[in-house]
Each structure stands twice: as C-alpha cells, then as structure tokens.
C-alpha cells in the first residue's frame, strides 16, 4: 500500500513538474526504497508510507538544500532537521524538495534562482510564496502534505493562493533546527495539506521541545486530532472590521465575510475586535526581518559550504565576489536594508523603534484575545496575480503580506483555509489567528468550517 502511494506521488511529481516547476529535486530512488522497506517491515508508525514534499530550505540528509539560491551550489546537508527526523521515524516518506523564493524571501516564488513555481489553477499566475512549491504540490494532488516555513506568511499566503490549508504554529511550537535561518525571531516551520485532519496528525508528530533549538517551549503536545469534534458552538470569533477596508479585493472581502456568516450559522458568537497597530506591521516587519537576515546570511561567504567565486586574490574580495555572484537581487536588497537599519547612527531610529512597535502589535493581540478565541481575516488581499506583474516594485510586493505578518511579529499561530473561487476561478483563503498554543482551537474551527463548506474544487493541473 505505502509503495503504491509513494509511486503515485513520484510519478505525479515527475509528470507535472515540467508545468509547475514545484520541485527542485525528486528522490525517486530513495523514496521508492524507503517505501519498500516500510511495506516489508510492516512499520506501523502513524504516518507509515505517507509521501511528503519538503521545502528546499529544510535539511533532509542526502538530498540537496539550495534554499532556491545559487550560493548554496550543490550543497547536501549531512544531517536531518528535527522535524524530518520525527516525520521519518513516524514512517513518512520524503519524495522531494520543493522550490521556494531564495532564502524564503518573497511572496510570489519569483525570487527563486531556479524560476517561479506556476499556480496549478492558472499557470500564468504565481503560486504565492515563499513556500510556493510546497503549496502547488499539495494543490495539484502530488502529495497530501508538505512542509514549508513561515516568516511573514510564507506558508499561509501560498496556501491561500493555491487553495489548500496552511498552518503556522505558535513561535516555539516546532523546532527550527535544520531550517536554514532567515529571521530567527519570526521563522517557524509549518504544514500545508488539503484536509484539517492531516494538519492535526502531522503537527502532533513535529511539535514539541527539541534540545537542538532552545527557542522551543516545554509546552505539552496535545492530541490535535481530538480537537476535531465538529462542534464550534459558543466559540467566540473576533471580527476586525477595520482590516476589511482599503486595499482589499472586493471578491476576497465578500468571500471572507460570508465565512463569518457560516460561523455564525454554526453557532459561533461574532465579536468586534480591533488591532489598532496592524497597519504598521509591514513597516515593522521589513526592519526586523531584514536586520535578522543580514546577520543570518553573513554565514554564506564561500568558506565552509556551497559556492565560491573564482579568481579572487584575497579573502575580502572572495567574500564580496562570492556573495555578489551567489545571491539574487531581492536577497541583496534585504541584506542591504538590514545592514543599513542596524548601522551606526540608525539603530535607534529604525531597529529599536520597530521592536517597540512590535510590542504594541503583540499587546493588541493579547487584548483582543481577552474577548475572543480566534480572529478571522483574509489571508491575502487578492487572489493569485500574474507572473511578472509586481517584480519591479518591491514595496507593492511586500504589501501582499499585510494580513499575515502580524502573527509572526506577535508569535501567535495562524491557519489559512480555502473558502471558494473568484470569478476567474482562482482560490480565495481566509485566516484564523489565535492566542499562544491555541492550535487545538484553531484546528477545531478550521475543521468545523471544512465540514460545513467542503472545498471540493480541483485545479486544472492535477495529478488525478
């Protein structure tokens, strides 16, 4: 059984990759072999034989980890990320590594050094990003579940644009060991899937304290599937009316407002909430994320792994040339911006100020969650846009993350759920944000919606 499932995924990945560019590496030999071993041994692990795809910034021993960048060259990490260790111990089979924006910096996958991922709903449009390959692979039915990473919305936004579910857990819920760092105080590994139950099962396996990541919390891991009761009566759902105004596409607004109606019909109580500093989140994010990135990406210097530029006569020149030739334009732009805001004379004006406003954003959430169990918003202000449409305007591109970045800044969990198609048959998603460690409540609400309004549409580019 597991062998058959894995073979199906491998064949679908190979067949559809020419169209979607979702995979940067497909591990036919290794995946088939592991599936055969599992079948032979009768491994009863709770994920035995389930094929998964993994974003190419998460280390899987023996496979590449390019992070969508040329600077890592042909890098093959010699160790597994903790999440991979846990998933493979439970029997999951990694079939390949998925395309992403370079070092997870982007909202459209156009920043990958290996070309953009194409949206299975319309191949002239972006998949979203940065975990675009993972989202497209799940949407096209190649795998039931994929891993991504979410620094400002990079799991939830592509999930929304591709019509699948995307969960970003509470900061510290999943280990970042083996995830190539972009912005360490914001990064969190997340799950993309088509069914809430799969998200719950996989979260139960990857969550929890890890000795190799001191930011993981010693909070007990509950049985997340037990939360999927279908009963959401009495749940208090916060509606931040002010976020449904300017800049939000009309169809997306109507679709997400109808989600609120569905929840009301299901017995949830809708309460008005305010997140007064949410409008400052993008500004805060692009100071903090770039500052942390400029520091984290200093390690890519052509010494210990990856690409090194040729014909440099001395060390400093080798660093400069390696980084000039190895990094793409968006990564350079963010390293520059991060270096600028941290440089002498600007630190207090930008970095310290941003960290203070981050506190205000976090306090907004703490206050809002006094009166509700979760907050509902759109995930992305628009459905998928055309490839090439926003590449020349970095700021316009950054504004795609307006609904998602607040969760990373505050450290709270968020889940994106598909809630229908636009008139152009493009997926629309809504987002639920909850208090720290409220994944069970978020999954109960997500699952309740899924039961009431199942999203059964399939994209034109699909495995079956």
């Amino acid at each position, binding site marked *: 059984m597991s062998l058959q499932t894995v073979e199906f995924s491998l064949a679908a990945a190979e067949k559809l990759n020419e169209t979607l560019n979702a995979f940067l590496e497909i591990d036919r030999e290794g995946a088939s072999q592991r599936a055969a071993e599992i079948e032979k041994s009768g491994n009863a692990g709770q994920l035995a034989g389930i094929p998964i795809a993994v974003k190419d910034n998460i280390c899987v021993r023996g496979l590449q980890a390019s992070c969508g960048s040329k600077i890592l060259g042909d890098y093959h990490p010699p160790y597994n990320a903790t999440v991979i260790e846990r998933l493979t111990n439970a029997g999951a089979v990694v079939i390949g590594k998925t395309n992403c924006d370079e070092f997870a910096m982007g909202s459209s996958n156009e920043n990958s050094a290996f070309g953009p991922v194409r949206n299975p709903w319309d191949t002239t449009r972006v998949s979203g990003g940065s975990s675009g390959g993972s989202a497209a692979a799940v949407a096209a039915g190649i795998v039931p579940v994929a891993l991504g990473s979410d620094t400002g919305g990079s799991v939830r936004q592509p999930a929304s644009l591709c019509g699948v579910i995307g969960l970003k857990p509470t900061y*510290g819920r999943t280990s970042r060991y083996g995830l190539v760092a972009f912005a360490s105080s914001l990064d969190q590994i997340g799950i993309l899937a088509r069914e809430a139950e799969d998200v719950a099962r996989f979260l139960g396996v990857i969550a929890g304290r890890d000795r190799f990541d001191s930011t993981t919390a*010693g909070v007990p891991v509950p049985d997340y599937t037990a939360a999927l009761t279908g009963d959401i009566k009495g749940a208090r759902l916060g509606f931040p009316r002010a976020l449904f105004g300017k800049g939000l596409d009309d169809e997306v607004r109507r679709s997400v407002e109808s989600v609120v109606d569905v929840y009301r019909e299901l017995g949830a109580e809708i309460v008005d909430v305010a997140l007064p500093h949410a409008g*400052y989140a993008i500004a805060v994010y692009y100071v903090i994320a770039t500052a942390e990135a400029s520091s984290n990406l200093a390690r890519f210097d052509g010494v210990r792994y990856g690409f090194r530029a040729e014909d440099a006569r*001395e*060390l400093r020149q080798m660093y400069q040339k390696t980084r000039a030739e190895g990094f793409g334009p968006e990564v350079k732009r963010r390293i*520059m911006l991060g270096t600028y805001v941290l440089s002498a004379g600007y630190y207090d004006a930008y970095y310290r100020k941003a960290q*203070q406003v981050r*506190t205000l954003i976090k306090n907004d959430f703490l206050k809002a969650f006094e009166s509700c169990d979760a907050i509902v918003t759109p995930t992305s202000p628009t459905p998928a846009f055309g490839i090439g449409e926003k590449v020349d305007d970095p700021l316009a591109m950054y504004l795609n993350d307006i609904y998602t970045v607040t969760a990373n800044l505050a450290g709270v969990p968020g889940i994106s759920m598909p809630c229908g198609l636009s008139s152009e048959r493009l997926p629309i998603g809504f987002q639920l944000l909850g208090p*720290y460690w409220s994944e069970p409540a978020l999954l109960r609400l997500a699952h309740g919606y899924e039961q009431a309004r199942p999203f059964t549409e399939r994209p034109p580019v699909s495995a079956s």
Partner: protein
Amino acid sequence: MPIDQSDIEKVAHLAHLELGEAELKTFGPQMAQIVNYVEQLNELDTAGVEPALGGLTPECERTDSSRNDELISSLGQQIALAEAPDPAGGHFRVPKVL
C-alpha cells in the same frame, strides 16, 4: 531620507557585497522608498514601550534550556569538510588574508 550612491557603497562594503553599476543605481531609490515607508513608525509615540524580545511566549521564557554536560557525537572533521569549496589537510582553505 534620501539614500545616495555613497551611502549604498558604504552599506555594501559593510555587508561584504560587491554591487554592479545597475544595482548601485536601482538599490538607492528602492531602499529610499522602503525606508520612507518605514518612517511612518515615527507617527507613534513609543516612549516607555519596551522593545519586543522577539515574539517569545511566556511559556518559552520559562522553559529551562539547561541540560546535563554530556558528550554527544558531532559531524567530525571528514563530514564537516565534505561540502567545503576548498578543503586542505583537515582545514578550510581561503585566499590570503592580507
């Protein structure tokens, strides 16, 4: 705040990036636009507001990260050097420093 070419050159130097002519020209206005957008934070009075420590939850702050001082295996020299662009005699070799 305007960001001129000499600012860009200085930041590129700090960041160990060699920028081409085209990048020097485009990054200035793009960074100025983003920095200008960021300056809307100055509308907010943040006197007395503690800077966030980084999205850390109270539960994480309470988690005891100390552990027993036990020897565990690490990659070892051979594996650690296997991905290096220019390994030599058990070391990472680089061009001359001075």
